[in-house]
């Protein structure tokens, strides 16, 4: 059976006045049915752009300049807008970061849900409403009939994100791309939404790409992790493997900068320096200027190589020792 999603050498570029910013440069990924992948990186690492590229929603001046995105064997880049429109919301759905902003403030919830149903299914308004109602129940919204009549501003942030999730689930998609959907929420709501998403995806066999900068959030959720830096994947592997034994110095730095309970009163560890501008990327390994292990061997950019089974790393000096016990996040 083909993989659900295969991305080969994706190039997404933004043409700006100062030159071409390669937001995603040569990214390759694959995803099985029902799998949960955590796409981790700092702001500007290209993780959100990757999500938008899959859905064909990169706004000008950005565009997908090269590569192939195979969804269930069908090339989305070659298929263009027409093929994409059939999939959007139907087989691939997306959830955004800020639940305050994703629902149209002047349209009622029922309008926004019914239009989604009717965009892909030729059903009456009544049938569409019934499906919307069921979806709200599934994400744990009480008195759904009343809620359907309400406007977005009458919901709390967590409720709004639930509505957005319900909209994403309306057509039981094969893949949901979640772009930091819990970042704007309270920690308690965050945990609820996380576990609910996990349960819903397991129930319906939906695959999930969870885009986040927060390793702590994704480590409890994802089957696999892909760590992005400057538009590339620099490390990819199983969640447990990466968390316990990060091989790329950047991944190690990310994990070590998560605060631990045992380190009261000490300074948080951080990765020195800042993410480079996409317009002025260094030659060779993009992380080398910030990397404690960098030397002359880092000058030609290292390829993403399989170092262990199921573990790909883009580094010539990978760490091979597991993290000390107390440093691993729980």
């Amino acid at each position, binding site marked *: 059976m083909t993989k659900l999603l295969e991305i080969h050498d994706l190039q997404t570029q933004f043409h700006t006045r100062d030159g071409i910013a390669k937001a995603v440069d040569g990214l390759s990924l694959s995803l099985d049915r029902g799998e949960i992948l955590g796409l981790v990186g700092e702001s500007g690492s290209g993780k959100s752009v990757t999500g938008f590229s899959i859905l064909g929603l990169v706004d000008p001046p950005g565009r997908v300049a090269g590569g192939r995105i195979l969804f269930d064997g069908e090339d989305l880049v070659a298929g263009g807008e027409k093929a994409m429109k059939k999939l959007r919301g139907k087989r691939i759905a997306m959830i955004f970061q800020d639940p305050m902003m994703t629902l149209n403030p002047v349209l009622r919830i029922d309008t926004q849900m019914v239009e*989604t149903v009717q965009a892909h299914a030729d059903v009456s308004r009544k049938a569409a409403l019934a499906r919307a109602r069921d979806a709200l129940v599934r994400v744990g919204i009480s008195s759904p009939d009343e809620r359907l009549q309400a406007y977005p501003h009458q919901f709390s942030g967590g409720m709004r994100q639930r509505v957005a999730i319900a909209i994403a689930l309306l057509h039981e998609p094969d893949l949901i791309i979640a772009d930091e959907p819990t970042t704007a929420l309270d920690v308690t709501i965050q945990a609820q939404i996380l576990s609910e998403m996990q349960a819903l995806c397991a129930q319906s066999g939906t695959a999930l790409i969870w885009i986040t900068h927060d390793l702590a959030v994704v480590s409890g959720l994802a089957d696999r992790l892909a760590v992005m830096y400057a538009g590339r994947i620099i490390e990819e592997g199983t969640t447990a493997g990466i968390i316990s034994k990060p091989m790329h110095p950047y991944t190690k730095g990310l994990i070590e900068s998560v605060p631990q309970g045992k380190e009261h009163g000490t300074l948080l560890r951080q990765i020195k320096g800042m993410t480079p501008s996409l317009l002025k990327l260094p030659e060779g390994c993009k992380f080398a200027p910030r990397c404690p292990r960098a030397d002359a061997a880092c000058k030609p950019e290292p390829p993403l190589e399989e170092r262990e089974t199921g573990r790909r790393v883009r580094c010539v000096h990978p760490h091979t020792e597991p993290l000390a016990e107390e440093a691993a996040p729980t």
Partner: protein
Amino acid sequence: MIVYLIRRFGQSVLSIAAMAVLVFLGVYAIGNPIDVLINPEATQAEIAATTARLGLDRPLYEQFGIFVWNALHGDLGNSFVYGRPAVDIILDRLPATMELAFVALILSVGLGVPLGVWAGLRPDSIAGRTIMGGSILGFSLPNFWQGMLLILIFAVLLGWLPAGGRGETTEFLGMRVSFLTLDGLSHLILPAINLALFKMSLIIRLARANTREVCLQDYVKFARAKGLSGRRVVLVHILKNIMIPVVTIIGLELGSMVAFAIVTETVFAWPGMGKLLIDSINLLDRPVIVAYLMLTVLIIVTINFVVDVIYSLLDPRIGLSEMKG
């Protein structure tokens, strides 16, 4: 909603009352109408008699009291010049101005919003830039000059349309209107375009700016991610959001179009209220000036009231937050 409406209505009444005081005092201050109205060779006794007949010999507060009392009974006084009730004189002219303003409004919204949205969706296209360039001309060229140019091109050079007047009118809902006959319509087109150009340019710029802003919102991207057609995204998700500021502007501008169509009416010899006001000011015909100003205030306040109601229908957050307060 009811509470909101009642409170909003109270505000309207207050503004009208405040305006009544200002208008009366303002008009009272601009000279003695007797000097203009009466034969310069009249005797002192005749002047005194006329002054008494017009009620101008009483103190200011008494005149104001009488004015308010009569105004509440729908009587804004008789014109010094025509000797008929000022309100009747204005109402005779009102339909012509209203008709002109409404046709201009329909033109400016009907063309302005689509053009503005188009320019907002494709800000860098040739069409988008042309629309924006045209709108700059629209509101930077003086209104009277636009009118004269329209007459020059369409009435004089091409001879397609008449240069002035109202043309053939018919009865419609008890008013004389032009737009139902072909002749009337041909007289209506040029002044309506003249009056609409400025507002249209304003609406184009407003619609464009708002479209560009709304397009960047996550809910537009989310709507596209849901698989909606581009048409539905623009016509429902974007349009409903940009209509909120547009309706506000329309409300404000409709009032000013009705009230101050003076320039257009003068250029095109359109027999509306604007022309009447200019004549009355020249003759110091106080009741007509006062009645005109009061009627204008009433129209603007009413339009604003209606706009606020529409506004709360368009944006669910407004009416409801008012209700709680």
